[in-house]
């Protein structure tokens, strides 16, 4: 089959690789129909996430049709059209049972790596480095899905791929970011980053009852989408005005009740094994560039919540913790508990509250994936979201 393989920093190639096979009883094989490139794939592309190995298959936002099932999967059938959550969850550990799906105890075969770096291991992820399990990803014609009986989610009749594809990651991610803000009536939410996750966070904040959402970015096309498509009340271009000052003025001097950092880390171009090795050696390093997070902490109103859906992989410097402490902030973060949000968000889509396809700017064939990574990385051609059609 064809697959997008990681070959090193800024080097992904479409290659012919062996088709996946069932390895465990609860596995399924999915023939992929739509798969997207995620902003967090750019961290891999830039060689910034440690423990990628040459030949790894990329991709964690995908859907398709079941073509093969392990003997232990009873609730699905060959031919079912399904969405695949990017977090792999067993459904039977304490974390899964308490709906903390992305913290699954059992789905990461390389848990020892994550433990060395993070103390405890969270769930395995598709196509997201060996620290998170080394699972082959979904930018391919087929993918093996472990714990398919828990992970795969059947698509109701009458919905297109474009409408439901983003339930695999970015829509639930934006939604959980907003939910973590514990929004109360009258609240103002400020969102840094108007990429796809930011767009869904804006929309979700309204679904959860925010009175105002203020979106912050530097790309006019993204701000335009935030205002026109996602419905942000106001937008701030931080290259034109000081975002902190502008927010203070816009909120009557109180500051936003909660802030979302939907930017996350920005690549520095460090080697793949850098972080893991260095962390083990407890050597001093800063790996991520947390400009947005610093701004978010200082801009947030007293007693407010900072919600962090943007992926941070490593170690940050110069975090204004004094500001966070003295303002009594709450900081909430984490990979998305995708499984938890599938039902409610599918309802929103079916009810017509939202059509997630609005973020798609590019539809391509898998052969064009390497070029699309470049376009997406440099935000050329007003690129916001790329979907690969198979």
């Amino acid at each position, binding site marked *: 089959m064809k697959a997008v393989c990681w070959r090193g920093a800024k080097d992904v190639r479409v290659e012919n690789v062996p088709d996946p096979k069932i390895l465990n009883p609860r596995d399924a094989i999915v023939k992929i129909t739509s798969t997207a490139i995620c902003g967090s794939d750019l961290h891999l592309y830039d060689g910034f996430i440690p423990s990628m190995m040459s030949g*790894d298959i990329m991709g964690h936002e995908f859907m398709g049709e079941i073509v093969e099932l392990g003997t232990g999967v009873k609730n699905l059938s060959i031919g079912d059209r399904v969405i695949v959550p990017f977090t792999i969850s067993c459904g*039977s550990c304490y974390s899964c049972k308490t709906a903390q799906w992305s913290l699954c105890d059992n789905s990461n075969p390389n848990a020892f790596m994550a433990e060395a770096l993070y103390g405890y291991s969270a769930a395995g992820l598709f196509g997201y480095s060996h620290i998170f*399990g080394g699972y082959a990803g979904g930018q391919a014609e087929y993918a*093996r899905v472990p714990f398919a009986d828990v992970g795969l989610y059947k698509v109701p009749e009458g919905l297109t791929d474009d409408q439901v594809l983003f339930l695999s990651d970015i829509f639930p991610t934006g939604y959980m970011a907003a939910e973590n803000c514990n929004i109360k009536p009258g609240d103002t939410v400020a969102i840094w980053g108007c990429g796809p996750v930011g767009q869904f966070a804006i929309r979700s904040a309204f679904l959860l009852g925010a009175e105002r959402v203020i979106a912050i970015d530097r790309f006019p096309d993204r701000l335009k989408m935030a205002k026109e498509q996602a419905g942000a009340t106001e937008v701030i271009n931080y290259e034109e005005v000081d975002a902190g000052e502008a927010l203070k003025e816009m909120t009557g001097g109180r500051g936003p009740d909660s802030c979302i950092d939907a930017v996350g880390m920005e690549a520095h171009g460090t080697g793949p094994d850098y972080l893991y090795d260095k962390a083990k050696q407890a050597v001093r390093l800063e790996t991520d560039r947390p400009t947005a997070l610093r701004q978010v902490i200082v801009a947030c109103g007293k007693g407010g919540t900072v919600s962090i859906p943007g992926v941070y992989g490593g170690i940050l410097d110069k975090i204004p913790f004094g500001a966070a402490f003295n303002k009594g902030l709450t900081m909430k973060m984490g990979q998305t508990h995708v499984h938890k949000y599938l039902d409610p968000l599918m309802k929103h889509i079916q009810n017509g509250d939202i059509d997630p396809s609005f973020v798609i700017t590019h539809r391509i064939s898998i052969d064009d994936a390497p070029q699309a990574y470049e376009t997406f990385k440099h935000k050329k051609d007003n690129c916001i979201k790329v979907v690969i059609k198979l």
Partner: protein
Amino acid sequence: METEAGKINQSQAETDETISDKERWASIVGGSAMVLMGLQQRSLRGILTAIAGGGLAYHGATADKSLQDKVVDATGINKAIRVEKTVTIDKSAEELYNYWHNFENLPNFMKHVKSVQVLDMRRSHWVANAPLGQTIEWDADIINDQPNQLIAWASEEGAQVDNSGFVRFSPAPSDRGTEVKVVMEYNVPGGMVTAAIAKLFGEEPEQQIGDELRRFKQLMETGEIATTEGQSRGQ
């Protein structure tokens, strides 16, 4: 030597008025971590023999500070490789005990154990993978067996690798499942270098036992062991 240690423990137990030695060792087996880490002079087998047949009193490590301090302060040359690891599994102690008690199941999640054959109620025959494709074999006895709580085993006299261990099952707080603690000790046999034993046990014994317990948890909770071996990738 081990049996002597056991005898010493037992005789002390009979004379100590305040807290019997048997209880102390039971407290170590039953109590929290770090205590065993500090046990330098006593062999695990001695401890296990000492408490065999006795009731398993559960004391936290803090129940007897003086003992903990004493143990931690103990000095001596320790040739054994001893590892200790705990994992919490969301299943009943009974289920976990039953699976473990059939030693023939152990190779399902213990990579260094090739096979175990149960000979009778007490005895079993173990085959472990050794470096360079070799295997090491020995017979082991169950020396302490408390249903749904504890299984302790030790190799028989004259085994190629003198080893012993126990697994303890105790309830985790509230609805969090069962805490499974494993302690294993491998003693350096005559003529075999420590490094070879280390290899047998993995480069990092702590990590190996940790991985094995994690696989046990995966198997018990999900019915399978998470893997990517054999999946697609670019050549």
